[in-house]
């Protein structure tokens, strides 16, 4: 199995889907000749031409909405939003049209489209290039939301998303685009949308995370295992909507303690729902308060490096939270 970066795996996934299905096309700002702001589509323009790598105007609502229309009409669009922070102009189209179309038409039309957007902080991106937006969309039935943390899942989930008959949002941890490396299976495979992944087995407490935070949680888990003998089970949620309750509860049943880690703002972030699931359906297993470790409730990730670091969750903060919970 070759080792690959997250972004190379995403590109390979798109490449294979473009080759497999002539209905697949990619649109977004500078996705063509320039290969995208993060080079996610680099080289694909040369391979597939301007009819399938379509540079759009700088107009996010149109990038998404043209994808919805094309998907309704039978194409398989992959729409790239340069940064998740820029997705808000398209919010209405995603929530009011993409999510509702199958429902409002009583099954006449479905919306087989993919929206890709890099998200997350810790790169010096400041207010409008650091946001985590997944919770907004996880509130909307009709959408699917995935966040890969490994190159193998990035490619596999992307390929599943392209083939899914529903609108799928892929939020990609951009801090890990090139820093996250991992083995990617050779040959054809997909990663199913739905199941979570047990990234590390353990019996003392369950740590739930997605995206970049999975890596930080694994790092923290190794540290507390080495230094304190605490064995954490790390669950990579991968698919946020629909949520994999079974895996979430299975782990909790074993450990009785849960730490949910996400870099979005704490209040009503995705971890709030995981917490609610655990208390609703896992009360009998509970040995300690369910803990969330998340970004501060501030309007945005600020620019100044010390402020950014104060906002961001890191392995040290996670290790500290694990120790506290283990000692409860």
């Amino acid at each position, binding site marked *: 199995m070759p080792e690959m970066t997250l972004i190379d795996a995403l590109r390979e996934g798109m490449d294979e889907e473009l080759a497999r299905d002539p209905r697949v*096309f990619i649109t977004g700002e500078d996705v063509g000749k320039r290969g995208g702001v993060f080079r996610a589509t680099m080289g694909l323009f040369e391979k597939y031409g301007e*009819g399938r790598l*379509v540079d*759009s*105007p700088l*107009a996010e*609502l*149109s990038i998404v*909405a*043209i*994808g*919805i*229309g*094309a*998907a*309704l*009409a*039978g*194409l398989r669009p992959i729409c790239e939003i340069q940064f998740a922070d820029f997705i808000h*102009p398209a919010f*209405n*189209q995603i929530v*009011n*049209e993409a999510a509702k179309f*199958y*429902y*409002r*038409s*009583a*099954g*006449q*039309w*479905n919306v*087989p489209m993919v929206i890709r957007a890099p998200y997350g902080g810790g790169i010096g991106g400041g207010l409008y290039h650091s946001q985590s937006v997944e919770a907004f969309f996880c509130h909307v*039935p*009709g959408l*699917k939301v995935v966040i890969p943390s490994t190159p193998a899942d990035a490619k596999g989930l992307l390929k599943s998303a392209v083939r899914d*008959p*529903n609108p799928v949002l892929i939020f990609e941890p951009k801090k890990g685009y090139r820093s996250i490396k991992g083995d990617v299976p050779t040959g054809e495979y997909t990663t199913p949308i739905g199941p979570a992944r047990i990234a590390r087995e353990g019996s003392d407490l369950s740590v739930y995370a997605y995206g970049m935070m999975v890596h930080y949680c694994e790092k923290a888990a190794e540290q507390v295992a080495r230094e304190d003998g605490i064995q954490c089970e790390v669950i990579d949620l991968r698919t946020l909507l*629909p949520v994999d309750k079974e895996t979430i509860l299975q782990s909790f049943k074993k450990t009785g303690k849960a730490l949910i880690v996400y870099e979005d703002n704490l209040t009503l972030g995705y971890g709030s729902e995981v917490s609610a699931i655990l208390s609703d359906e896992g009360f009998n297993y509970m040995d300690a308060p369910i803990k969330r470790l998340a970004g501060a409730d501030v309007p945005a990730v600020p620019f100044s490096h010390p402020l950014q670091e104060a906002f961001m969750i890191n392995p040290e903060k996670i290790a500290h939270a694990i120790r506290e919970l283990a000692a409860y």
Partner: protein
Amino acid sequence: MADLTKEQLLEMYRQMVLIRRFEERCEELYAQRKIGGVYLHLYNGQEGTGVGSMFALKPSDHVITAYRDHGIGIAKGADVNRLMAEMFGKRTGVSGGKGGSMHLADRSVNFWGGYAIVGGHLPLAAGIALKSKYNDDKEVVLSFIGDGATNNGYFHESLNLSAVWDLPVVWLIENNLYGMGTPVEVSTGQPELHKRAIAYGIKDFGRVDGMDPLAVYAVAKEAVAYAREHGPALIESITYRYKGHGVSDRLYQRREQEMALYKARDPLTVMEDHLKQLDPGVESALAAIDAAARETVEAAIRYAEESPDPTYDDLINHIYA
């Protein structure tokens, strides 16, 4: 008389009368609380624009519109029984009772629906047109646009996109002079809305008298042919709604003088005049068409009334394909 046969002209008349009778009965049924909800946007007065323009399309062409959508659905050929059942919120409605008046849609006739978010359907129209271009299947999208929608961002982005990608779409602005209650001159710096086309590099087919279905047909035919071969076209149809913005809007009653001017040129009357000019003995045929339209609508009401309500299963299905 354009290039239409007498039979085609009678068909055009039939569609307009059917829409008018449908809308009249909907208004009554709403008053009787048989049609529920808080919204019902009637098309009375605008029939010439919808029917005239759609007569220029092939069945394989596509139509999308805003929330004043009953007449558009009827003219595109959606089943009248199922349209009425949707008004009633019945399980047999075109949208399974989930949509209601503003959210009709019938895929089988390429009627892509009514949309309640003003302007929100315009980029979808562009997306549907992109598929036509992508597959080179030469299908045209006719997108109706209310005058009120020309001032939001959807309009700007969609028109620009259709121009840069040469999409086969006809943007048809139905200018009924008011965005809800606000006159076009009050909301719009350039009230001659068709002039917007020039700014986007779109072929401007100018203003047309929306009360005359044949005038609308003539310009739509040119615009549709242009869109099919070259790219986007824009038409502004000057029309008038006889009813309020919605059923609860009574403000229109204050506009009696203005309304009288338009009602004197009612699209049904204009069409009758065209037909009588062609054939002085047509009157009995027109009366028969009207009687048949009334019966079609009554049958649709019976169908709707006898149809079952949706169930809890309908609430929770059609979320994911």
